């Protein structure tokens, strides 16, 4: 167990930052689901249910611990339509991770639960034709990184006065209760505490006699609260439905550090000091369908509705304002978006599964608002995965996700005009232990 603890610590230290995936949302949760087009709200297979659908978590058999990590390798380029120059991002590798632990009773006969069963038994025959002998309750803890971004543009690039570096990370810690009401129905909810950080850098167009241009670095810790609710319903052996809602979380930076490097004759114009800002992490409403025509074959379909409209303005409020350093409000005007994710799994043997998936997500960013922070576009994603279970206890899952996005735009605020292209390949590995 000490080894495991060490592993967890290492993962958390290695953390964050992840990339592009519809705005700065990171859809890299659970290797099983990643193999299947990142869908899994209605097809409950492992601890990732804590993220996808807390209502289904009670249907995860036995106690389980899942640890996963995905290496996200993103290569971005920008073709400036004015000068024809091409700039690159510095291929940042980020490692979003997931850790899910679920424990409790698959079905419960304890006294307390018997009472509950009795209380609920008047519903017998009304809502479910189920005998409520199968009530269970599970507790879970999910620690995962649903949002984040890292972009590191090459030195001296043409958009450097808009952005040179952005690192956003949010780690969600989600204690969860999931209740199984009979063999067909589950509800669950989790409280989300989010902790994270932001580091945004750009150059300032002031220069000294040696040609050194100014630079601004805004960094700070952020935190926020939210919740994750879900309902799971499995009317037939081969069909399951899921509805989940992850709330919006406002990440607030209350005491960030603004650091400016400028010619010293301008240092009073750009005083170092504190700043406040906030970033909304949008709500996600998901309707999922799971289809299991045979023991060997299963499919998962998720449709997401993402509340990106919450990201209206990016503001920075500086403690020390000067004529050169004024508070900024940049319009973002994101739109709510839909995404569709679909995947399949085939068990070649009971222990060995192969997976394939595809997804499509439209972009929340309107024309005129694409920035080098998040050069987002409508995108297709392609995924594949493998799973191998040893002695019904250990499962190793591997996954790989590929997506490419390309967008041409002229930003209304900076006039930065050109084509962004980002290719992302994200291989991941997870380890599950059931006991």
């Amino acid at each position, binding site marked *: 167990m000490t080894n495991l603890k060490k592993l967890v610590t290492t993962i958390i230290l290695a953390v964050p930052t992840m990339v592009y995936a519809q705005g700065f949302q990171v859809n890299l949760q659970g290797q099983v689901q990643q193999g299947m087009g990142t869908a899994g709200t209605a097809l409950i297979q492992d601890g990732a249910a804590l993220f996808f659908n807390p209502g289904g978590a009670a249907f995860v058999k036995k106690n389980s611990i899942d640890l996963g990590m995905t290496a996200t390798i993103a290569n971005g380029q920008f*073709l400036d339509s004015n000068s024809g*120059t*091409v700039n690159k991002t510095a291929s940042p590798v980020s490692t979003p991770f997931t850790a899910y632990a679920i424990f409790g009773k698959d079905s419960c006969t304890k006294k307390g639960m018997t009472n509950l069963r009795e209380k609920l038994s008047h519903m017998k025959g009304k809502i479910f034709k189920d005998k409520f002998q199968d009530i269970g309750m599970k507790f879970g803890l999910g620690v995962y990184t649903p949002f984040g971004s890292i972009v590191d543009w090459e030195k001296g690039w043409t*958009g450097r006065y808009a952005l040179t570096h952005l690192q956003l990370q949010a780690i969600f810690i989600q204690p969860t209760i999931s209740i199984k009401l009979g063999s067909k129905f589950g509800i669950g909810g989790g409280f989300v505490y989010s902790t994270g950080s932001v580091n945004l850098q750009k150059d300032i167009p002031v220069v000294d006699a040696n040609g050194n241009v100014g630079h601004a670095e805004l960094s700070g810790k952020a935190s926020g609260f939210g919740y994750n609710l879900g309902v799971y319903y499995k009317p037939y052996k081969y069909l399951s439905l899921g509805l989940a809602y992850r709330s919006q979380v406002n990440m607030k930076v209350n005491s960030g550090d603004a650091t400016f490097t400028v010619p010293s004759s301008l240092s009073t114009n750009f005083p170092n000091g504190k700043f406040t800002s906030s970033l909304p992490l949008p709500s996600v409403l998901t309707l999922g369908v799971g289809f299991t025509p045979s023991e060997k074959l299963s499919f998962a379909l998720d449709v997401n509705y993402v509340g990106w409209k919450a990201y209206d303005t990016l503001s920075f409020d500086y403690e020390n304002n000067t004529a050169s350093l004024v508070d900024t409000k940049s319009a973002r005007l994101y739109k709510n978006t839909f995404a569709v994710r679909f995947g399949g799994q085939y068990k070649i043997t009971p222990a060995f599964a192969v997976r394939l998936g595809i997804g499509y997500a439209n972009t929340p960013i309107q024309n005129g608002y694409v920035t080098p922070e998040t050069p987002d576009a409508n995108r297709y994603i392609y995924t594949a995965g493998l799973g191998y279970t040893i002695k019904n206890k250990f499962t*190793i899952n591997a996954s790989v996700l590929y997506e490419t996005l390309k967008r041409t735009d002229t930003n209304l605020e900076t006039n930065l005009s050109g084509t962004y*292209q980002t290719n992302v390949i994200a291989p991941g590995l997870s380890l599950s232990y059931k006991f």
Partner: protein
Amino acid sequence: MKNILNKIIIVTIALNALVSCKPDLKAPASDKGSIDVTNYVAIGNSITSGFADGALYYEGQQVSYANLLAEQFKTIGGGDFNTPWTPIGTQGIGSSLNSKLVLGYKTDCQGVNGLSPVPAAPGYGDISIFSNNISAQGPFNNMGVPGAKVITVVFPGYGDATRPAGSFNPFFTRMITPAEMSTASMLSKAASQNHTFFSVFIGNNDVLGNALDGGMSTSPITPSGGAIGTGFDASYDLIINTMIANGAKGVIANIPDITNIPHFTTVPYNGLTLSATQAAGLNAAYAATGASFKEGSGNAFMIVDASAPGGVRQIKSNEYILLGTPQDSLKCAGWGSSKPLADQYVLNEREVLNLKEAAAAYNAKIKTVAEEKGLAFVDVNAFMANAKKGIVFNGITSSAAFVSGGAFSLDGIHLTPRGNAMLANEFIKAINLTYGSTINLVDITKYNGVAFPNP
């Protein structure tokens, strides 16, 4: 178990190496359209030469709009653009033998130490620029000569150093051989190079000379009418007809309204701050002129105006005080209050009108010539008017504000490297529009504004 893990990791890494997932964006190749830029010659004044910060110096020459244009031309077959370079690292030389200006610190008459343009070298600038004849390095594609007017471009003997000081141009003398001093004009030197493409951006000094002298009659505005060498129109026609005679195509530019240039807009007309006692004293002293003063800031300066009753009056909001007006005299010596500002420091309403009318007539002529000859036309006047409001490019806002605007150099007239890059892009847009070429614009973010001292 560990073995399997290792294998999976190795396979994953190998898979990554295989799938090289880097995007491959490329700009389409530039097309030259209907022009041949093999040998480009630029006729112009100080702006074309790369003059900046009150002097001609190497780093300024490197980024003149004409040199930047020639650099972009290389993508469509442009050749070398020979420039009458000054020495690398020189402090430069200006029209009063001064060095270039740099932003430094200066303690004013009130004991306040602040940022101010100061000469890079005390006393004289680099006199060797005038004394070293570099004609052997010619002919020069960059025929920008600081101080040149439309009427001097066509003047044979413009570089004749045997003439009395002030009646020849030493910036041109250095570019020609002693033998041709009495015969060479800027136009003759420009047109004798078998040019395939040309630019003409000239006419600014035909009004600016007068404006810089506060509208004094000693530096007259060039009239539109009159013979070659005297009048604007006839001289301009000769320049363009000479340059297109061999079939070359080109681009010509009009001139900016001087009231959009920081040299004339930086010192506010109402920059006078007074105590109650001072205000009362001035009100009493100037009661007859109708001037009024109040305690605090925002008082209009007093100026000399021969046509006003009593010869003095308060300046109006549409009149301009020159950047060169001694600031310490304004602050501490009663200039503009107890001592009305002399005419040479002020462009009054009448003088501004004369300058605007002359510039409007030149610009009408230039536009007509462009249309008649089918040449690309750059509306520098509109560009400078936009710059006054502020132009945003790739996250940089540049404006005509002195020092902080980033577009104008420390003399308040000539451009910074960034201002030159912006101007070069106006030329490229005009060329692409007229000749169907697809020359890329200059990446403005590679060029800086005014350099700030450190410390």
